[in-house]
């Protein structure tokens, strides 16, 4: 039950090495081993998206990935994305639109929304809604989140065209 595996990976640009319990999930690894509490656990079975982080460039559910499988991986969390400034415009739009209320879903929502910015820069409102449907929010009713993502898509398109 308690077999341990040694892993070395890059988290938010920093190399970390740990010996982890084989049953430890990525989200618990981040929260309890590294103190990165920005991503949250909420359903713990891959439905709600509150634990979404970036693994090797793609958004993943932190509750569905085993930490033991992460040797050599690159993980980015909301803390890293905030420090790098990569999604500053998105974060500012969330504040301006009040697209976060309790904030519990927000870090996961932002990682998913950041994926729209790069994967679907021309996304319509309906496509934004579809794209974030794997991230549950109980507070906002989603409209402000869609507004914020739409604002950033528009302003990024504008600055690229300029």
């Amino acid at each position: 039950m308690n077999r341990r595996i040694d892993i070395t990976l890059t988290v938010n640009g920093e190399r970390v090495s740990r010996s982890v319990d084989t049953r430890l999930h990525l989200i618990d690894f981040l929260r309890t081993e590294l103190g990165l509490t920005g991503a949250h656990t909420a359903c713990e079975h891959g439905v709600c998206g509150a634990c979404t982080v970036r693994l090797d460039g793609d958004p993943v559910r932190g509750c569905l990935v085993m930490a033991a499988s992460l040797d050599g991986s690159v993980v980015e969390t909301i803390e890293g994305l905030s420090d790098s400034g990569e999604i500053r415009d998105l974060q500012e739009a969330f504040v301006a639109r009040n697209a976060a209320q309790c904030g519990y879903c927000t870090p996961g929502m932002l990682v998913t929304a950041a994926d729209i910015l790069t994967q679907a820069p021309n996304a319509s409102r309906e496509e934004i809604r579809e794209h974030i449907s794997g991230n549950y929010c109980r507070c906002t009713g989603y409209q402000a989140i869609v507004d914020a993502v739409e604002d950033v898509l528009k302003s990024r398109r504008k600055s690229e065209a300029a």
Partner: protein
Amino acid sequence: MNEIVTPKSLGLSREDLPNSYIGRSVPRPNARKLVEGRATYTDDVTLPRLVHAAFLRSPHAHARIVSIDTAAALAVPGVVRVFTGADLAKVCDPWVAVLAHLKGMKSAPQYPLPLERATWQGEAVVAVVAETRAAAEDGVAALAVAFDALPAQVDMETALAPGAVVIHPELGDNLVFTRTAETGNVEAAIAGAHKVVEATFHTGRHTGVTLEPRSIIADYNRADGTLTVHHSTQAPHMMQNVFATQLRMAEGDVRVICKDVGGSYGIKVHVYPDEMAVACMSKIMGRPVKFIADRFEAFGSDIHARDHRIKGRLAVDAEGRFLAFDIDDLTGIGPYSVYPRTSAVEGNQVVNLCGGPYAFDNYRCTTTVVLQNKAPTSQYRAVGHPIATTVTEGLVDLAAEALGIDPVAIRRKNLIRDDAYPCTSPAGMKFEGLSHHASLDKLLEMVPVEKIRADQAEQRKRGVYRGLGFASFIELTNPSPFMYGIGGAKISAQDGCTVRMDPDGSLVALSGVTEQGQGTEAILAQIVAHGVGVPVSKVKVVTGDTQTTPYGGGTWACRGAGIGGEAALQSAIALKEQILEVAGAMLQAQAASLDIVMGEVVDKATGQVRMPLAELGRIVYYRGDTLPKDLARELVQTRHFITKEYPFAFTNGIQASWLEVDVETGMVKLLEHWCVEDCGRVINPMLVDEQVRGGIVQGIGGALYEHCIYNEDGQLLTTTLADYLVPMAAEMPDMHVGHVETPTKESLLGAKGAGEAGTAGAPAAIMNAINDALSPLGARVLAQPFTPDRILRALGTIA
């Protein structure tokens, strides 16, 4: 009239009065930490010597606990200790959730962990404490608990019938509470009516699904006898009292700290036995104990709500005027009334609120509240309102159909006139001032009814069924002690705020109301900035700590703005007066000739800057020797506020839903949604709109998706987010929000509260829209949630 000076009221632009913040969409100062992952939710807190709790929960709806063998659990690596109900009862007194003003109400004593019987599936029975949550769960898996399953009373309809399982034999039966309100002569009105419509409605049992599950760390310090509780809660002072009382401590020795809360909606304003168990275990062990519910535990042990069957009749005359509402409500609340708000208030609200928007003379409504072996129910966002609104608005549409009157026209005819206030409803509710007709007018400016009706007719020819539904509503806010205090519950209706000026001229506001994402801290900062006269960026708001904030009730029933906001305004005004008195002494001027604008003392007549607050602060705090000896110089002021004239404030509004029903699949597609609401003074329009939108979507959840489904044995079948459906982004419509402002005269601020209006009206609007869509097919649905299964049954597609 309670006029607060705003730029608009003076005929000025925002720029002319830059620190006027009432009515202004300012972003929340605390939002940045949320978007950067720097918030502090309870699970983010770690403490030295922290241990983690996990619970063995009853697999039966009703069972005798025969034996508990802990040996194997204690042998699990990392397990520290195992606790049974008997262990915890030594340090904790049981509680009984009744309110004295709900006459005849009864419930049984409840312990942190049950002593002899488990009474719902999911009830915590044994606790394991370990070095990690994982080890604690290993310990739970190793426990050997023998249960003797007993017959369960699952169905509320038979809870009072002969042969029912009496859940607490000492109570005699399963009746918790019943009340009938009666005004006029309902029987005579019905006998003489032109038409009487009747229907039976069901609102589905559902729950709040806070994304952050219930979370608590209790930390008892043996050295000084204090208990510090980090708690995800809406009501820190209430919980301080509960922990102190049940654990036999002084209130001053208990500190409840509540930092960021990941959603509450009423779920986190109750006393949960497993959380009380955590406090007990910490007291016994003298070290911090953490419990974070997982999703399975949340579904089985968070409070549920809205499990009602309601029979209703509405009598009308030939012109469509309402003569009488006759309502019979039944609700099953689980095996215990929930402490301290109780589980009878939801049914009581149904009695208070049915027919609420309308003028009529004859009213009869009975609620019957019964025990059953399911998870306990209690107050969830918009307590009772979605039920009362569903019944009322459903009957109104039935009457309109029976009379061949347009749904808008029948509402127009019967809504209480806007010049009829103050008045008292047939249910006994006192209305200070509402705006049903102005709200309806505003809604009709927003909803393109003619275009929609033309589209509806066109689509029907193509076999596409779209519907438009309306729902007027009232919403109870700003409760006085008449809500809980007079019933003996130690829940403060009063709230307080302390505002302090620091030496650099910045302000700190400490408030007894709390933030769970609504924007409480943002509006308090706006109010204090407005009241004193500083930029909002100069105000720091502190909430959620019983050791530092004035005693208060916390945030529930939409009281944050109306009660907490008024306390903040009054204390800001008091601080401003004090500052100006000091400034007057310094500047050899009359205080009344001075003002504070954007953090500077100015000459009121000319606007000329006399002194920055930072200079005033420097002198008061560091060079007090230069001030007159007898000058009062307390740059800190505290004020409390409680409503005195009305037991409750009431808001009102109306919603409209435009949707499409796929008659092949039974799926409902929401096309557009509108809400006009009157929350009194709007402090921050953006935050109010977002409260309304979020509330609408929770209402939509209850109307279309969310359902705690039990089988006949009392087993909860919806225990994951894959089984229990909540609204997702792709299914939600764009929502248009409009406002009418009728400030309450009870306060200078005039705010009434905005958090529950969306939830109160949305289910009824959706029900009426679905039934409008289905009307050409002769089908009707009255049981929420309106699932594809239920719609296809109504259509006769499936049996």
